[in-house]
């Protein structure tokens, strides 16, 4: 893949909820997979790989993965 020296017009469109629903505490600390338009959680798991495979098994070709924060441990900083 060549390195691009400028912004490229994006190619993906989506329509997501204006007010996202609260992710239930049962998913705390887990990877979550949403459907493409982020209307519902379709899978979850302990790792990115496990969750992606579970999501694709539901038939969603472009699941959206995100790591939910832990229920007890507060996240206070990124990598330095």
């Amino acid at each position, binding site marked *: 893949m060549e*390195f691009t020296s400028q912004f490229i017009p994006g190619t993906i469109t*989506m329509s997501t909820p204006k007010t996202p629903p609260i992710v239930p505490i049962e998913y705390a600390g887990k990877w979550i997979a949403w459907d493409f338009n982020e209307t519902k959680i379709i899978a979850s798991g302990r790792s990115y790989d496990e969750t992606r495979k579970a999501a694709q098994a539901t038939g969603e070709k472009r699941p959206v993965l*995100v790591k939910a924060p832990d229920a007890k441990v507060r996240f206070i900083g990124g990598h330095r």
Partner: protein
Amino acid sequence: MKWPYHPYAVDKSRICPPGVVYRPEARLCVRGETGEAHLRALIDTGADHTVLPISIALDVGAELFPEESDAAKGVGGHEIPIIPGHVQLELISDEGSQAWSAFIGFADFESSEEECSILGHVGCLEYFLAAFDGVARSVELTPRAIPPNGE
């Protein structure tokens, strides 16, 4: 491009009375040589670098440079190895999207429980004006600089 903060239920505590944390996350597509992955990643102005789990690099076939590995750590945290990788990133919102290619870090976390996706300065935020609206609970990134040719 604008995104609402995303709410997550957590245990209630003195520093988190409602038991909900709201995270400024952006919708992201990561493309490599063999595929793409759709994520929501935390917009973190305190992070020097953009870092994703190595599992994502392997999933999309990112071009990796393990001989140039680095290290990273969070506040009070232990070091984790970071492998540079070349990918195309595309930020996506309901209003549109913007793509560019970048060298970012892929972290080899000790356990999958530690995995996280961070949009930091190098590779991402350095190209945008970031506006966080804590009252409206939304975050907006506006393109401000042309990404340089990576070297």
